[in-house]
């Protein structure tokens, strides 16, 4: 119980410190931090419509965050989220455009293809690591660029739509349906991806904590030599972890391109969701529930940022600054923790000397 409290307290106070420093920056630029934060909060959670927008922004982050967290449990640093995201998007888009089937078959098939696309992009560095011991950080970074250029070529070549904006739009049966009808919250775009993302949060959590496979995967991540001694194959688990991590990022791309954008644009670049997934995973303490919370936070900053820019005249770039500050406060080893420790040590020291 105490442990859980501490695990929650630390990120919350890190976020608090990040906003505190952010306030100083806003003040220094001659604007009102109160107005800025008020509009940020309003923009993120102020109305049902804004809340729906926050949830929508968080979908890809949940998937890429889970991707990074899962790989990390197997001792792997998956920087390849961007590439996996793109390849997953491409595979699902192709399935969405070229396959004709009723929704009940077509939509799940698109998800499967998206997962497979990401998994392929994860499998390559996974195999290179498992078979030849080549470090996954190098491979995933390089593969990001390969994926970007490959997808850009396909989108501007074989899959180019006559209109020239990128790929054609997917068939209606491939588009993730809205959760809440437009008539209830006008203009909302929150699709079923959010519910599927929550399901995956629970699935990944269950997989890691309750299955033999999860046990094996974590064992390899924590101590490969001991895992081997326990009859667990290091290479198999590394490969598997990278496939699964890639697949999760691929699903992020699936919902982003099929749902949010409705096509893959011809002017393709990294979306940033893959890299933000690293931040989300770290802020979320590398556990699935934490990833969910961190994704909502980052999603709300995204949707609230636009609002803040309009209302408080604070540039949206400040959101990026706050995101960066949150990350710094969470991951710089114990920046906040050291404040706690220093305080406790000071108290103890006093107690010791007087005793």
């Amino acid at each position, binding site marked *: 119980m105490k442990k859980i409290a501490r695990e929650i307290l630390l990120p919350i106070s890190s976020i608090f410190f990040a906003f505190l420093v952010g306030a100083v920056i806003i003040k220094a630029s001659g604007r009102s931090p109160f107005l800025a934060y008020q509009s940020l909060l309003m923009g993120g959670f102020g109305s049902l419509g804004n809340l729906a927008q926050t949830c929508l922004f968080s979908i890809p982050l949940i998937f890429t965050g889970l991707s990074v967290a899962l790989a990390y449990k197997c001792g792997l640093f998956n920087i390849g989220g961007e590439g996996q995201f793109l390849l997953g998007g491409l595979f699902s888009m192709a399935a969405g455009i070229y396959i004709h089937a009723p929704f009940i078959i077509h939509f799940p098939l698109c998800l499967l293809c998206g997962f497979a696309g990401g998994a392929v992009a994860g499998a390559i560095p996974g195999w290179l690591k498992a078979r030849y011991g080549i470090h996954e950080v190098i491979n995933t970074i390089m593969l990001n660029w390969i994926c970007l250029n490959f997808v850009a070529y396909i989108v501007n070549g074989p899959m180019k739509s006559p209109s020239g904006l990128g790929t054609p739009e997917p068939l209606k049966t491939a588009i993730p349906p809205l959760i809440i009808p437009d008539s209830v919250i006008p203009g909302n775009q929150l699709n079923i991806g959010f519910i599927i993302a929550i399901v995956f949060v629970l699935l990944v959590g269950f997989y890691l904590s*309750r*299955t033999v496979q999860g046990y094996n995967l974590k064992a390899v991540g924590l101590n490969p030599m001991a895992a081997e001694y326990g009859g*667990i194959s290091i290479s198999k688990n590394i490969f598997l972890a990278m496939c699964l991590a890639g697949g999760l990022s691929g699903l992020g791309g699936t919902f982003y391109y099929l749902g949010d954008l409705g096509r893959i644009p011809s002017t393709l670049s990294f979306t940033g969701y893959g890299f933000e997934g690293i931040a989300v995973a770290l802020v979320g303490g590398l556990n699935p529930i934490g990833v969910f919370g961190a994704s909502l936070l980052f999603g709300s900053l995204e949707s609230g940022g636009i609002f803040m820019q309009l209302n408080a005249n604070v540039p949206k770039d400040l959101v990026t600054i706050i995101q960066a500050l949150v990350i710094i406060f969470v991951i710089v080893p114990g920046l906040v923790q050291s404040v706690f420790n220093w305080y406790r040590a000071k108290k103890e020291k006093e107690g010791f000397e007087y005793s």
Partner: protein
Amino acid sequence: MDSSKQQNILVELKNITKKFGALIANDKVNLSIEKGEIHALVGENGAGKTTLMNVFYGLYQPDFGKIYLNGTEIHMANPKTAISLGIGMVHQHFMLIPPLTVAENIVLGEEPGNFLTYNKSKAISEVQQISEKHGLNVDPAALVSTLSVGTEQRVEILKLLYRRASILIFDEPTAVLTPQETKDLFRIFNSLKKEGKTIVFISHKLKEVMEISDRITVMRQGKTVGVLVKEKTSEAEIARLMVGRDVLFIPDKEVFPKGDVVLEVQNLQAVNDRHLPALQGVSFTVKAGEILGVAGVAGNGQTELAEVLTGLRSVKNGKIFLKGQDVTQDSPGEKIKLGIAHILGIAHVPEDRHKRGLILDFPVAYNLILGSQNKLPFSKNLILDSQAIQNFAKEKIVEFDIRPGNENLPARYLSGGNQQKVVIAREFSRDPSFLVISQPTRGVDVGGIEFIHHQILSMKKKGKAILLISLELDEILNLSDRIAVLYNGKIMKILERAAATEEQLGLLMAGISEYSSTEKS
């Protein structure tokens, strides 16, 4: 206190307190060392001996407490300060550069010569001079990579002497030595003492402490519990102070009728991680209800032998038979079948529990099922059964007296002895027919050693065949029925326990076999 004695005190550590998080490694520890004495610092593992010396050497800053040298308070900022004050330390793991010569290693950082040039002949002659003066008998021109462990240690000592150290600290120096090498080391200790040097000797081997030291400071759980004069104390008294109760030294040995051959190994060959031959034709058998001890100095093939027998390393040549069945893992290049030991019913207590035996960040309960996680009752249809895992852990915690008795605590937070108990509990609960037990009591406190030895003997009573690999000769002598001496990847000789003497084993461990030729075999 009379003033003459006061003057004789060279070093005084007062009220040293050092905490690591919640752990108090040193709790107001006092230590005073007289000039020119050999002072032993004894205690169980985790008693705080090494921490205390690291504080003295400037590697750690104490939270409280003061250090006095010749009566003046000093601030030991870092090891550089310590070295400049004439304090030197020989660590458990030697800090030498193998491709360089002895002389180069010794003068490193203080090379003779001017700014740009290095005066090689001067370095050699200076080192030669010091070596002769103290009877260290080291060739300054030899490459360190060609030296034996005992000689490497002497190079470390030379390094300190070259830097004009007058207080020499040794952290468990005999752990890696044969009995003969230990004798040599003690001869060197005595000659250094005659030169007026002061020696601090960290150890938990009481026999050696009684042999060499003048005074003994005993530590227990981070506190000083006694300062003894060698002439006025006994091994039993030191042990009592170390553990806090009376200790039974030798477990009761009963003779059992031996059963059938359980394990047979024929001409076993294997390579080490650097692809160099590590086992060069090893053959032996182990019978049911028998403990075959494998003695030897570290690095003579013990690690590889245990790994080959448990399927963690492939066999290059030779055969392994378990109950008559060929279980040799000899597919070179191919991945060996992992977990074969667990499938065959071989239990393996690995030599290094942190490296292989435990996943430190897993809770105790998870560590207790490592290797059985995919079997009933711990999992069904690939889903873990938390209840069964917890129940099993609770049962083993009671049975093996694992403390603290919290199955959800990560293994990292257990003491060395309790971590080892987790490994032993897991392996002994597999109901194996054959056990490979490596270094079962390395870094385990005296109380824990006693417990683990009894567990091993009780497995023997149950008719298990046991291969006991240990660097502690006393352990081998106390537990084994027969003793095989491993040297350079070969078995020098297999002796009946009753016929083995420490002297003879020591020679065999050093690769000298003429002793055996003089007796009938």
